[in-house]
């Protein structure tokens, strides 16, 4: 494979952004800019699909690897994909065009700049998922803060400044310790190349501290309880497209980081800190589900549900069982689709009524039936109903958890019930009941573009719910080898 397909995936959005930068910004609905951005991201999506088709599922070694000298004798620009990362890349390239279609109503001013920010964000996110060098990973991981800060800060809601600052500083604070760890790894082992590090292994005496440094960054980004407080603020204030990107992809960077770096590089420390992760995950699942029950703001409720779902993900990863890790990956993909869809459904009614409060709504089913059906599908997928992709992930995670620790699994199962409770109650209060608010009577049902993007999201949710094989086949070999490598590392301790 000579053509640098991964680099072109990373670079294409930037090229699109540059092109947009040199077009003239128009007031109002800037169709040219939108078409350019849409075209770029759709092409990117097609490339990533091609990547998936030509991806060899029978091996766990990294494919499409590109290796170039970047800083002489120190850092190489190295990218590549394996079964785990390829799914996240496709998720990214799939969600971004949907975001771009959805900006129709939510972004009123400076549309061109908004699209530039989204495109740059996309290329950074793809970079995170295919980086095979710790420094390159860190660069992409941190660089994403800049466009997201601007997206929240410029196009956000009333408390946008506070939220943007909180988002930026929280994440930065978590990440600087990871930078210390990355440089220390360089001095301990002499390389920051992930593949080489997998082979060399890191001395046991350093592992615990390094693991904690990486953890501090990933825990904030995941977000895990108790450092999750930036997420509800950021979600609530961000424009719809920003919330979608944040929930669907940004949160997955940390889960991906846990699998790729925490498990892969520090197997012994991962074993040591499993109880910590279990505790925090279980608290996140139960505690934030209870908080979600009490929310009056729809976006906030979904934000808290994201924290609970990511609790399942971290729980699954650190079961260190085949099912657990596979479940976590599928849960992340599924949550990427479902949370994106939920934020978009909230965005649809918000654009019409300019209120995110649950009490504004009620009885929507009698005025906008199409919307209500799709909303129901996403709500059910979020609570993990069999037949939706949410079920596969949660089920596998719980299966892995039962193998490893019965008590934790039982408590986490309670979380599933709570998840059903807050989601169904939300749905009931918004869609069913009497139509009290007079303004709601004039509300319009989904327009064509909204209908299109929500259906685009509904299709894979249902498809993978019934037939998860394409996902599982892609990740299976990589996960098996990860577990084998982990076990052999533990055994040789």
């Amino acid at each position: 494979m000579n053509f640098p397909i991964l680099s072109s995936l990373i670079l294409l959005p930037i090229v699109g952004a540059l092109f947009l930068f040199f077009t003239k910004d128009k007031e109002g609905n800037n169709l040219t800019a939108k078409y350019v951005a849409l075209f770029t991201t759709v092409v990117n999506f097609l490339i990533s699909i091609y990547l998936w088709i030509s991806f060899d599922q029978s091996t766990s070694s990294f494919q499409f690897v590109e290796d170039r000298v970047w800083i002489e004798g120190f850092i190489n620009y190295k990218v590549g994909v394996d079964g785990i990362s390829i799914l996240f890349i496709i998720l990214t390239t799939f969600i971004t065009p949907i975001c771009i279609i959805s900006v129709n109503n939510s972004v009123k001013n400076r549309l061109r700049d908004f699209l530039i920010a989204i495109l740059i964000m996309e290329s950074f996110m793809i970079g995170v998922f295919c980086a095979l060098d710790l420094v390159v990973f860190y660069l992409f991981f941190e660089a994403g803060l800049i466009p997201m800060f601007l997206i929240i800060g410029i196009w956000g809601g009333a408390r946008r400044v506070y939220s943007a600052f909180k988002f930026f500083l929280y994440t930065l604070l978590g990440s600087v310790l990871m930078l210390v760890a990355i440089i220390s790894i360089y001095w301990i082992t002499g390389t920051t190349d992930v593949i080489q590090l997998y082979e060399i292994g890191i001395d046991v005496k350093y592992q615990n501290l390094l693991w904690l440094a990486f953890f501090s960054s990933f825990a904030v980004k995941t977000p895990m309880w108790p450092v999750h407080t930036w997420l509800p603020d950021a979600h609530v204030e961000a424009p719809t497209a920003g919330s979608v990107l944040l929930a669907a992809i940004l949160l997955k960077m940390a889960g991906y980081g846990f699998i790729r770096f925490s498990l892969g590089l520090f197997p012994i420390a991962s074993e040591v800190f499993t109880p910590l992760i279990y505790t925090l995950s279980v608290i996140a699942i139960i505690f934030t589900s209870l908080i979600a029950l009490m929310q009056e703001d729809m976006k906030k409720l979904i934000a808290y549900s994201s924290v609970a779902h990511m609790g399942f993900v971290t729980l699954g990863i650190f079961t260190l069982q085949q099912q657990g890790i596979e479940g976590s990956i599928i849960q992340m993909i599924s949550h990427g689709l479902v949370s994106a869809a939920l934020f978009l459904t909230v965005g649809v009614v918000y654009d019409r009524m300019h209120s995110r409060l649950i009490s504004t709504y009620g009885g929507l089913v009698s005025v906008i039936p199409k919307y209500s059906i799709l909303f129901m599908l996403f709500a059910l997928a979020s609570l993990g109903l069999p037949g939706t992709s949410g079920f596969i992930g949660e089920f596998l995670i719980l299966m892995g958890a039962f193998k490893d620790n019965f008590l934790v699994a039982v408590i986490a199962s309670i979380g599933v019930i709570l998840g059903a409770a807050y989601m169904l109650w939300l749905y009931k209060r918004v869609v069913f009941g009497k139509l009290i608010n007079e303004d709601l009577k004039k509300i319009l049902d989904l327009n064509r573009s909204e209908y299109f993007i929500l259906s685009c999201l509904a299709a894979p949710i249902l498809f993978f719910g019934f037939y998860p094989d394409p996902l599982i086949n892609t990740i299976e070999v990589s996960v098996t080898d990860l577990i084998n490598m982990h076990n052999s590392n533990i055994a040789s301790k």
Partner: protein
Amino acid sequence: MENLNLVLPEIFISLSIMFLLVLGVFKKDSSKITFILSLFAILITAIITINETFSVSRETLFNESVVIDSLSSLMKIITLVGGFLVLVISSRYLKTFKIYNIEYPILILSSILGMMVMISSNDLIVFYMGLELQSLALYVLATYNRDQLKSSEAGLKYFVLSALSSGLLLYGCSLVYGFSGSTNFDIISNQLNSNEYVLTFGIVFILVGLAFKISAVPFHMWAPDVYEGSPTTVTLFFTMVPKIAALTLFIRFLYVPFLNLIDQWQMIIVFLSIASMIFGAVAAIGQTNIKRLIAYSSISHIGYTLAGLATASNEGIQSSIIYISIYVVMNLALFCCLLMLRRKDQYYEDISDLSGLSKNHPILSLCLLVILFSLAGIPPLAGFFAKFYVFIAVLEQSMYFLAIVGLLSTVVAAFYYLRIIKIIYFDKEKDKYDTDHSLWLKFSLTVSTILILLYFIFPSQLIEVVSRINII
């Protein structure tokens, strides 16, 4: 016979200063021609420096009191480039305040000459001579806008405090001379041993004097006032050029005469570094004047530079030099933006004047965005790499505390840079500023911003240049 070609840059620049002075005396209204000629003088000096000294690995002159090596030639070139750019973008500002006189370029040239002598010094006396030459020129420059109270105040404050620190420095030098019996750095290095406690006082006095010159905490008090009061172009000069020379002196002192006394000075440098990083970050939060804010931010940047020096390794020195080079570019870009905040012959320098800038001046705001994120050290901009190299060197020596404190203070610093970005991008807009800037100003801003933005594509080049500097 000494090889005078090696000091040809210094000789040429002194001759140009004298010539320009004579020209100024005999020709009326000669400010414009003086400006142009002094630009050429700097340019030619830079070319001579590159030609004559860049390939020299290490040569000494005049009884080993002057040293020409890769460190001195690189630092001289950065100094000259900095001086050139300051001169090039000042004219519009000076004309506005009606201080477009012949003295300005001549004073800048004199201080550059002083710095070049400092950079090349290998002897206490030569070093002190250079230091005083540059300081005297700087005192006058600080008070150059003499009709304004603040400028005079800045000059006086700078003069009094700087004279005090020079006194301390001299006292330290005399102690060191007393113990070693020589003023030559190489000889001192052989004569000194760490058993003499009084010698520690000498080192401390010298370090205090130098710390004052680069405004490291706790000897920073003059910086905010002087930076605020001086004319903006002079502030630009202050924040870039003298720091390069003073940093070179730090390297020369610590790693030639005092290398064997590393136990005595390492803790001092670590303390200066940590104190500067934290104080610079925290104190900048409450500032409302951009120049004061830049003063505090330059204090914290000096902290990072010192962190590299504290490692006592070649990598550390190289990372400090990389840091200061990148810092010079970022600083230049920031001041270019500041000089563009002009409306009807009045310059604005409050942070609130930036409010909503992105609506009326999208390109300028984009440049500011890049510069500020780079100053905050966010990847993939140049400022991140500057910090990255420093922390690589620091962690190589297992100085974890220094690294973690440094990185945590970047988070604090990020707050006030974000605050400016917030004001530019999130707040309500004000009236438009004038856009008829001089071509040089636009050019400097564009080039420096592009350098900051695209540094990550070719990071190796700078490392290659700097890696020739091996002091230890």
